[in-house]
Each structure stands twice: as C-alpha cells, then as structure tokens.
C-alpha cells in the first residue's frame, strides 16, 4: 500500500532570505525618495512653482548633456568622501557629524604645507603627496579625537564632533586671516595660492578632476575593508552591540579610534582636493556644507560604501543643476536645502518600515503555500 507522501524533496519556491533583505534594503530608501519627491512637489505647488519644471531642470542640469554629466561627477567627488566620513563611524555605531570641520582643517593643512613646498619649487608629485598626507592626517586626528573622547571619556560624539567642527573652522579662519594670510588677497582672506603648476588636473579625456577617481577608489577599498576583512567584521560587530564585542575580547577602543581616523582622513582628503583643484588656496569657501549633505547620502546608501557612489552622483547632479534652477525658476539656493531636509526626514521615518512590510518577510517555517 503506498501512502501518498508530500513532495518533501523539492526545494521551496520562495526567494531566499538574503535576496529578500537585499530587496528590502533597496526598496525602502527608493520609496522614501519617491515620497520625498512627492512632498517636495507639494511644497513647490504651495509656493506657486511647477514640480515638473523643477525635476526636468534637475534632469537636464544633472544628466542632460555630456557637460552636465561631468559637472555632476565633479560635484559628487567631495560628497563621496564626506559620506564615507559619516558612514564608516556609523558602521561601528557612532554618529559623527564633524566631517565639515575635518574637511576644512584638512584643506587648510594642505594649503599651509604647500607654502614652503611651492616657494621651494618642490617636484609636483611630491608636493601633492605631502599635501594629501597632511590633509588626511589632520582630518583623521580631528575625528579620531572625537572618537577617542567617546570611547575613553564617554563624551557624546555627535555633539563633540560638531563642536570640534566649529572649532576647526575658527582655527582655519584665525590662520587664514592672520599668520598665513596672503597679502595679495585683500577682499577675501586666503592663504598663498599654490599656483597653476601645482593644481591637480582632470582625468584625461574628461573634465572631471582626479578627486572623483580618488573617491571611487576609497569607496571600493573601504567596502572591502568593512565587508571582507576581520577588522571590518569586528567593527560591525562592535556597532551592533558594544558589550558583546567587549565580552568577546575585541579591542573596541582601537576599532573605534581607527574607524574615526579613517573617516577623518576621507574628509581631510576631500578638503585637499577642494584646495588643490577648485580653489587653489584655503579660505572661507572651504565651508560649503558638504559635511551635512554627506550625512544624508550615507543614510540613503545605508552606510554601504559602494552604494554611496551612485547616491553621491545623484546629489552631485542636484547640485550641478542648482544654478540652472535658480536662474530659470527664480528660486533661492536654499531650495536644495529644503529638498534635502525633506528627504532626510522622510528617509529616517521610513526606517520604521524595515521588518514590517509583509512582502519582504521570509515565509514562516512550515508554510509551503
């Protein structure tokens, strides 16, 4: 007598858990972006502007022509680095918002160390190496300080990193207007210009400067570091539960401070590129708000270094289209700030959807329908 047995040998036709989680991690931020776009459109309608105009101008100004695409990539370079500066400490559980200060201080350090190099006629590659090194070291130490204070003194890192950011800007202003001021820069106090010979050029064949390439390289390297090395695994584990990590004997203090130094180095490098490519000298223009946009990008990319690159390009496009929007629609530059604020708020609120959307939950065991 044969008993009809259920087909227990066949694999369940449900997608595996990993695919579901990946889909969820992609879907929720994209949904947040769409909802933010809708809310922002509402905002535009209320003030009498056309959302269609706005978004089509973003498309044209950001991706419409080869020129605009290159502008977007160019603008995204500091954003990639600033976002990495937030994302790496975020993986270890810290909320470091001092990237702005690290960027400024790094750019200043690069310009300052350039002064003896330029006047001494040092070879250009050496000068770049030293400038970048100084920038990364200064930025790294700055954020590293905040991390050290957090682990060894229990000081809340969000507030301390922001305070350090303001202090960094004050330090830069102090030197730029005082000891290191270039006498020729009367209207806008700056350090001595590094001169055209030392400016970093564009990637051959494009008009995008090397900072973009550096950003991509760092994003890939940091992705490998955080996802494929023991260090990264230990760091993520600490980010999940500090006490469990300590109980396991992980060197939490070392991990925290190192991650912060890496983050600060990224921000400092962004400052170096700002000085070596865009401005040619250090002055108040270094304070451009990249730090805060970087935080938003990091959240949208869910703190994944690889995902940061496309998100940063998107924001670079919005920035590149900014001038066009200002002129064509007669709106102030703060419009982009409002859009970013809306995206930020909606994105964080959407955090609550993780684990609550039925579609993405793996089916319970024994459920074979």
């Amino acid at each position, binding site marked *: 007598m044969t008993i009809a047995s259920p087909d227990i040998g066949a694999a369940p036709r449900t997608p595996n858990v990993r695919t579901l989680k990946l889909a969820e991690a992609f879907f929720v931020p994209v949904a947040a972006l769409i909802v933010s776009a809708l809310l922002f459109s509402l905002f535009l309608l209320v003030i009498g502007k056309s959302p269609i105009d706005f978004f089509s101008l973003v498309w044209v100004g950001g991706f419409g022509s080869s020129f605009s695409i290159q502008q977007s990539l160019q603008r995204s370079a500091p954003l990639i680095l600033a976002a990495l500066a937030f994302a790496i400490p975020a993986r270890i559980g810290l*909320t470091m*918002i001092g990237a702005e200060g690290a960027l400024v201080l790094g750019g200043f350090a690069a310009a300052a160390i350039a002064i003896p190099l330029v006047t001494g006629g040092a070879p250009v590659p050496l000068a770049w190496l030293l400038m970048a090194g100084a920038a990364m070291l200064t930025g790294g130490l700055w954020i590293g300080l905040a991390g050290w*204070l957090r682990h060894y*003194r*229990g*000081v*809340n890192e*969000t*507030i*301390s990193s*922001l*305070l*350090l950011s*303001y*202090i960094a800007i*004050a*330090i830069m*202003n*102090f030197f730029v*207007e*005082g000891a290191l001021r270039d006498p020729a820069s009367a209207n806008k106090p700056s350090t001595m210009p590094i001169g055209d010979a030392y400016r970093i050029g564009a990637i051959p064949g494009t008009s995008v400067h090397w900072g973009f390439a550096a950003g991509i390289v760092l994003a890939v390297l940091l992705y490998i570091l955080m996802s494929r090395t023991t260090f990264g695994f230990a760091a993520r584990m600490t980010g999940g539960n500090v006490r469990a990590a300590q109980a396991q004997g992980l060197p939490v203090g070392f991990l925290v401070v190192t991650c912060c130094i890496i983050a600060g180095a990224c921000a400092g490098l962004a400052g170096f590129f700002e000085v070596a490519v865009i401005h040619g000298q250090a002055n108040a223009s270094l304070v451009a708000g990249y730090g*805060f946009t970087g*935080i*938003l990008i990091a*959240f949208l990319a869910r703190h994944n270094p690889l995902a940061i690159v496309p998100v940063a390009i998107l924001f670079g496009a919005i920035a590149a289209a900014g001038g066009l929007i200002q002129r064509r629609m007669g709106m*102030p530059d*703060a*419009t982009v*700030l*409002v*859009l*970013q*604020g*809306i995206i*930020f*708020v909606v*994105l*964080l*609120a959407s*955090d*609550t959807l*993780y*684990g609550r959307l039925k579609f993405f939950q793996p089916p319970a065991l024994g459920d074979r329908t």
Partner: protein
Amino acid sequence: MDNSLVIVLIAMLGGAIRVSTPFMFVALGECLTEKSGRINLGLEGNLVLGAMVAYAVSFHTGNPWFGVLAAGGSGIILGALHGYICKLPKVNDIAVGIAIMSFGTGLAFFFGKAYIQPSAPRLNSISLGDWTGHGPLAQALQVNPLFFVGIALAILMSWAFANTRWGLIVRMTGDSAASAKAMGVSVDLVRFLATAAGGFLAGIGGSFLSLYYPGSWNEGLSSGQGLMAVALVIFARWDPIRCIWAALLFGAAGAIGPSLQSVGITQGYYFFNAAPYILTLFIMIASARSKGAAREAPGELSITK
C-alpha cells in the same frame, strides 16, 4: 589699563545677560524633553526657523510679541514632527534630530531670503541701570523682558517637576517607561507633548536672536547654539535652575570676543569667538565622567546609556 579691565568685565556682564537668553530658552525646552526621556538634537533648526518666523511676523504685523508667539508656534510644529517620527519603532532619534535641524534650517533660509534687508520692529529693552549714571554699566544693564520670562519659567519648571502631578508624570516617563505604563500613562503621548513644548521654548529662544540681539535676520544668525544647549542641559544635570546658571556662563563665554573688541583688542578674534565651543567641549568631558550626572540622568535617556 585698569579702566579697560573694568569696561571688559562690565561688557561681559551685559553680554552674559544678552547672549544667555536664547541658550536659556533652548536649554529649558531641551530639559523638559529630556526629563521625559527623549533627546532632541534638532533644536538648532527650531532656533533658526523661530528666528526667521519671528522676524517675518513682526515685520508684517508690526508687533514683535506676535513674532515671539509665532516663533513658538513654528517651534511646536518642528517639535511635534520630531516627536511623531521618534515614536515610530526602530527610528534613530539622534539622526532624526540632525534631519530636523537640516530641514528647519533649510526652510528658514528659503523663506527668509525676503527678510534679510527689511527692518522689523524689535523687542524693547528694560533699562535697569540708569540709576548708576555710569555709561557702560547702564548699557550693560539694558535687559530684555525675555530674560525675566526665562528665569520665571525656570523657577516654575523646577517647582512643577517637584510638586505637581504633571511634573511627576514627565519624570516618571523619563526615568522608567515601564513604571509609567504600569501607572496607565501613555509614554508616547507624554514624550510627544514634552518634545512639542520643548520645541515651543526653543522657537521663542530663536525669536530673541532676530528680535533683540543681534536683532536682524540673516543666514549666519545661529551657529550651533541649539546643540550647545543640549550639552548645557547635561552639564546642568537636568535641573532648570542650574540651566539658568549654565546659560549665564555660556553667555559670558560668548561675550568675551565682542567685549575685548570694544576695548580695541582684535587679535585672536576667532579664538575668542570659539570660546563657547571650547568651553562646551571641556564641560562635556568633565560631566561625562561625573558620578553626579550619571545619578541624576533620566533613566530612559539614550545618550547616557
């Protein structure tokens, strides 16, 4: 030389009173929010938006006090937004604070473009020092009415926390949410109301910036005062009266730069202006290790866990 020292000290006294007022209001608002167990880092946004709204409303209505109230209203809206989002599960409330800060500042800059040039009616000051006949002292003692409102508010809050049912409910929600729930109190609602009320006070603090000192609206009005107030509350160990003293201390630190400038010392200008930030940093380091602070912290506050 002696005379300049006296002038600097007097200027610092006046500055302390003036500059401390926005700190006072933001700190009292944050104190209320944190007593209920939630941390609101978005008060910087409340401050800036409140400043802009106050200036705009004062400009349109001709009465600065309407501006103050409107600023409070904008503060309630931002605070309510913060409170609403934070009560959703899995939301990172420190990040939400940064987002609200970003959003509030963006809105303020956007709508504020039209109000940078025009001049709006400002709050009058009460001259307390005219009887001294001493020029600089009389000027230092030109006190604005919001300063007294702030002090009265702190006394009221301190009394209310200790002696009223509402104060007890707020404290209970902040110390142990489980006990509050056991008593039938809706933890979410109490925190939501406390965050909204905290936002109201922060908005009023912002109105002071644009309607009294510095007395105009521009995009560089506030630079981190909202976040310094959070550090201030920890330093004051969540006691409203100590918040006032701490605010006066911060005000004096913020007044060092302008006071020295008034006697002609302009070197190191940026360092003196960075004094409040440096002071805040040292205070945070000191109070992070303090056993007193750990004892008096509301139990549910995530910042100290």
